């Protein structure tokens, strides 16, 4: 339950120990989110639960609603986004599958929204243990049509907080949906986190100014705003698609984010995202003890993928090991980035099993060094 003073209107910066899922809830409130619409599913139900406990509707006026399904929740997000509000939802893999229709609509209508996926093992009902097997779904589509989500992959509880703020910022900058692609590890683990000072929610007037396209009610006789993604006239539809594509080219140029560790002197690269990158980092240290020089590239934006950065980092290296909790998804983007100029191998555990740093070092040796 909330601590005293926790639900005040103007919360100061605060340092706390909490789960990733809980941090998302706190961050949403502090970054001025207008509405959260969600549905319980393991391993992310704490997002909705924490929001309900914190009762932000009594302090910041934020709306929190448990919808009847993930499908209803994403359509509520679509509705809120259509009116220029800062809205978000969260779910886990099977629930994210349900949301794909709504996500396509949000992207097609050029609306800002934030979607959190705390990945669990699949496919199907799968397992509640962590996985990274929704990379394709997040970065290559998931929903129908030519669109892209901006995808942020947090590896710490702090990044879970920071990416809520960054996510909303990017969503409104480009009027495009943004996904935080987390895994069950970072959702469930507890870490120290700095919660930012409360940012006030925008007033209705500020929203109308910032989002003149929004369906907020036709005040003062202005021309009506229609939020739609339907265009039956092919020539016009092609133009709309080109506009979306132009936006994606702009995002690809400006927004790739990544982290590098010890890349310059390395002989081998490990590319990993999310919490798995931390295991890879420990593997780097273990490898160094064995005299193997390993560098880490951690993509932070999975879309736009830091293609140039990976290409540059791979120059002069002997091989790349892509470590991800799936059967080989991000590895395709890595191979594209390096033009197959050097060996690129995959290592991953499936079914929710988390590899140890020792396993990663063994894989590096088996698949690249001793080959």
């Amino acid at each position, binding site marked *: 339950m909330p601590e005293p003073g926790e639900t005040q209107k103007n919360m100061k910066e605060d340092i706390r120990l909490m789960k990733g899922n809980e941090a998302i809830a706190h961050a949403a409130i502090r970054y001025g989110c207008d509405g959260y619409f969600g549905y319980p599913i393991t391993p992310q139900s704490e997002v909705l639960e924490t929001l309900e406990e914190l009762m932000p509707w009594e302090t910041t006026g934020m709306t929190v609603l448990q919808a009847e399904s993930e499908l209803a929740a994403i359509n509520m997000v679509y509705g*809120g986004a259509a009116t220029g509000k800062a809205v978000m939802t969260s779910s886990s893999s099977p629930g994210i599958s349900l949301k794909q229709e709504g996500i396509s609509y949000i992207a097609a209508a050029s609306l800002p929204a934030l979607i959190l996926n705390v990945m669990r093992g699949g496919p199907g009902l799968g397992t509640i243990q962590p996985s990274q097997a929704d990379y394709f779904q997040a970065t290559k589509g998931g929903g129908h049509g030519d669109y892209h989500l901006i995808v942020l992959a947090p590896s710490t509880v702090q990044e879970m907080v920071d990416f809520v703020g960054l996510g909303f910022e990017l969503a409104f900058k480009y009027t495009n949906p943004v996904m935080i692609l987390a895994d069950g590890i970072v959702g469930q683990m507890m870490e120290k986190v700095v919660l930012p000072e409360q940012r006030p929610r925008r007033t209705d007037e500020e929203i109308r100014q910032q989002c003149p396209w929004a*369906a907020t009610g*036709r005040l003062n006789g202005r021309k009506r705003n229609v939020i*739609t993604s339907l265009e039956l006239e092919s020539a016009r539809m092609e133009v709309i698609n080109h506009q979306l594509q132009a936006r994606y080219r702009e995002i690809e140029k400006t927004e790739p984010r990544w982290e590098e560790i010890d890349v310059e002197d390395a002989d081998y690269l490990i590319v990993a995202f999310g919490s798995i990158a931390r295991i890879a980092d420990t593997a780097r240290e273990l490898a160094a003890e064995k005299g193997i020089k390993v560098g880490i590239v951690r993509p932070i934006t999975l879309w736009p993928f830091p293609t140039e950065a990976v290409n540059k980092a791979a120059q002069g290296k002997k091989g790349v090991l892509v470590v991800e909790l799936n059967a080989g998804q991000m590895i395709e983007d890595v191979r594209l980035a390096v033009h197959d100029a050097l060996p690129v191998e995959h290592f991953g555990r499936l079914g929710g099993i988390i590899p140890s740093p020792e396993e990663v070092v063994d894989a590096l040796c088996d698949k690249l060094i001793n080959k």
Partner: protein
Amino acid sequence: MEIEEIIREENKVYCKPELLEQVHMHYCPGCSHGVIHKLVAEVIAEMELADKTVGVSPVGCAVFAYNYIDVDWIEAAHGRAPAVATAVSRLWPDNVVFTYQGDGDMSAIGTAESIHAANRGENIVMIFVNNAIYGMTGGQMAPTTLIGQKTATTPYGRRVDLNGHPLEITNLMAILDGTCYVTRQSVHTPGNVRKCKAAIKKAFENAIAKKGTSVVEVVATCNSGWKLSPEKANQWMAEHMFEKYPLGDLKNV
């Protein structure tokens, strides 16, 4: 005389509603949508709600409703309008939000969203145009299609053993405590047009008073889908549909 001298306010007996756009509608001649759109436009104008109304349009023939009634609109995915309306209503409590949906939208793919929005008692208006068929996609069976009725997917007539019974979605909505006003209307006679307009007005008043969800079902015709002339379609509706979907208030608290 100039036209402005002839058409003076005090001489005006009837005119095109100010909120109905001066455009050619895509609806078939004889379609009930034309009249229902007119009534919605008149009610919003008379209640002076044009600047705070947000409409949520369906997938179906009325997908282009946003081209005809001059308020802000959000095009929803098929069946999801009540969920979309829920968010708009909660986030903009001073606005008036209504959905305009067909029978596929509300009672097939959108059943869960319809029932749960009403169950939560969202302060919205749901206008449900029930013509017992899927018009836009070429006349296929709807949940509200009558037993024996021929459609593109029931070419020999709907059968209970294959397709189940016509779904009385409005009756289901009336059971929920979240609904304050559930009514069935039609627009096939002048008297019914007047009653339907009054029902729509009452629904909007309820939304403003935050009494919960109002559902106005308009039993309607689809002369194209039914393969009848507009006049025969009205007759067929009166003879067959009112038996299953009787007009009147199911709930009015």
